[in-house]
């Protein structure tokens, strides 16, 4: 039976610490180059900060971890790639990016509605000796190619091997834990097999207050988000019923105006 790996990210639990970003960089041998900026950096997991649009002591912020949404339907990047360097894996549902096949045209970066793809502007390089700390489970890339989150395929490999050695067909989710899921201190990122009805994450995607980003464009992402705060949920759909932008101007449920002098 094929799996469909996905996530539910609880935004009420995300404190914006950034552990997931650092752990992702370590797992995927992503360099941290001194010349990289927010526009040119390589962050397969990127936590963005949003606010409720209010000022002063009514302001609240939320943090949204953005990774490849693993689009299931008419995956935009797969459609546009001239090299067939990315495809949706039939067995796992993972949108697999092969940097070794990519020629760096960056068409996929334009196509991705979630801005979840990053280009190697420079040769990945580390200070002398630091290459000894690279993760052997993930191959290194070169400059001029696009990369993105592959749901820690290196860890999937390890889990598959372990299952095979134990004579099992199915991967045990206790062995397949992506780096961001493992690193999150609050357990905000929950990972599971959406095709398995008994998986708690597969059940959670149907719960109240769970949503996906840009649902209306129909890419059927497998990364779900969850928040009990209405203003956070509203930010996922910036275009309202009337076609005009929705502004989050309402208070978080728990803000009471503390009277200031």
């Amino acid at each position: 039976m094929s799996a469909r790996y996905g996530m539910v990210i609880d935004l009420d639990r995300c404190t914006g610490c950034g552990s997931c970003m650092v752990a992702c960089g370590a797992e995927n041998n992503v360099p941290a180059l001194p010349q990289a900026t927010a526009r040119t950096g390589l962050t397969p997991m990127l936590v963005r900060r949003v606010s409720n649009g209010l000022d002063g002591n009514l302001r609240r912020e939320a943090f949204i971890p953005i990774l490849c949404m693993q689009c299931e339907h008419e995956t935009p990047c797969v459609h546009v790639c001239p090299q067939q360097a990315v495809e949706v894996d039939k067995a796992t549902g993972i949108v697999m990016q092969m940097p070794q096949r990519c020629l760096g045209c960056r068409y996929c970066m334009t196509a991705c509605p979630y801005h979840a793809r990053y280009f190697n502007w420079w040769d990945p390089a580390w200070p002398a000796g630091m290459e000894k700390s690279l993760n052997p489970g993930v191959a290194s890339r070169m400059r001029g190619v696009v990369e993105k989150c592959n749901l820690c395929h290196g860890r999937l490999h390890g889990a598959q091997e372990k299952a095979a050695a134990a004579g099992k067909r199915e991967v045990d989710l206790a062995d397949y834990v992506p780096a961001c899921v493992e690193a999150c201190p609050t357990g905000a990122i929950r990972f599971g097999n959406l095709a398995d009805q008994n998986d708690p994450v597969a059940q959670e995607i149907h719960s109240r207050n769970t949503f996906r980003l840009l649902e209306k464009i129909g890419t059927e992402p497998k990364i779900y988000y969850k928040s009990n705060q209405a203003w956070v949920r509203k930010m996922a759909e910036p275009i309202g019923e009337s076609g005009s932008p929705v502004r989050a101007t309402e208070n978080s449920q728990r803000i009471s105006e503390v009277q200031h002098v």
Partner: protein
Amino acid sequence: MRRYAVMFGLGFVVALIAGWVAFPHALYVKKAQPLEFRHKTHAEKSGVAECSECHVLHDDGTFAGLPAMEKCASCHSDKLGESKAEATLVDTYIKPGHETPWLVYAQQPANVWFSHAIHVKRAGLKCENCHGQYGKSDQVKVYEVNRISGYSRDVWGHSMSRLRRAPGDGMKMLDCEGCHRARHVEVGCLGCHK
């Protein structure tokens, strides 16, 4: 016209000889393994009957393609016989505590992921399927390295044309794909790549 045909033919023949005879000879260079290991000796004399006794498949799925020095040292901590090979093993590697720098016939590029656990345990492939009858050999196989790519000749295969190959001769991606196609096992790119 006849002269042109002759000249063309001469050039053609010279190129054929250069390409099929001289080129492989020049491209590959033989390298000696650190010592003359004999699989047959180990199978017969020391009762190591199964490949898996030294080429261990661990519980977590990882595979020791090259046994670590501890494995050799578990029997050869001191010399058991008279051979020069064993003397080299004990004096140069075991006693000083260095791993033996074996040259790997099946060495793949760094971005390749191959799981012995999946192929041996799940697919039920025998070692001979891909590695040939190496386990019964009484000589260490000749290692020829490709001067340009740095990989062993076994990856392309001994046959330069890649036609009429013995099973296990050739470990390019094409060979993996061929077997997968024949057995109808579909894996995506990241199924075999890191």
